[in-house]
């Protein structure tokens, strides 16, 4: 059983993708297939970026069981997603102009995640949002 925590800071665009790279590298060394790695990398990157752009910060928790189940939990401390249905709609975004200048804010984050993971659970309130995504890796 592997259990690892990573800290995500608000608006830390300079390091965006660092956690996703670390997780991908770790899973690659464990022999996860390139097809599953691709889906994990896409989902993890999108969720990491969402936290950087939209949240006050939080953490990512990677769990890998001996049975071959990989779970990624993205838990932030707010401000929550106002309208989850809209957030799940491709092309809809609340990203600020500063984020859009960097090429973020396509409104494809959550739809990309849902399309690429095997399990998807999203809970949100003004106190924080928690996204848990699962993959069968072995």
């Amino acid at each position: 059983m592997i259990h690892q925590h990573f800290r995500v800071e608000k608006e830390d665009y300079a390091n965006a993708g660092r956690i996703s790279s670390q997780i991908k590298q770790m899973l690659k060394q464990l022999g996860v297939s390139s097809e599953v790695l691709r889906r994990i990398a896409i989902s993890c990157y999108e969720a990491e970026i969402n936290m950087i752009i939209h949240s006050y910060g939080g953490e990512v928790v990677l769990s890998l069981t001996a049975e071959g189940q990989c779970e990624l939990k993205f838990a932030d401390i707010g401000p929550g997603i106002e309208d989850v249905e809209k957030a799940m709609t491709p092309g809809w975004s609340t990203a600020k102009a500063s984020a859009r200048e960097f090429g973020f804010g396509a409104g494809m984050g959550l739809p990309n995640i849902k399309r690429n993971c095997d399990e998807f659970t999203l809970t949100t309130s003004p106190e924080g949002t928690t996204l848990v995504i699962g993959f069968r890796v072995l």
Partner: protein
Amino acid sequence: MKASVLTEKYGFEKLSVSSQDPEIKHAFIGDLLSWVMGHAKGDDAWITILGHPNIIAVALLRELACVIIAHDAQVQPETIEKANQEDFLILKSSLSAYEICKILISEGV
């Protein structure tokens, strides 16, 4: 085609110090990171006008062949530094994405 054809035959500028001469199998044009993450394929040459360091994170995560900056768009020094650290190739051209694609197609991509 090899990426070096673009520098040697067509005068594209090599922005990063990379020892790699990747094989370009396909190309993807896009300036929205999520579209690239979601739709690009491994070994794509990614043609973009984005110059922020996040393009390197996306390119590495998707295992793209290289990034080609179109229209001589500005690239931040941090982006080049990150590419150098990762031994990843960034090329630059004054041509538009369309004109770059025409070259790629003429070379069999």
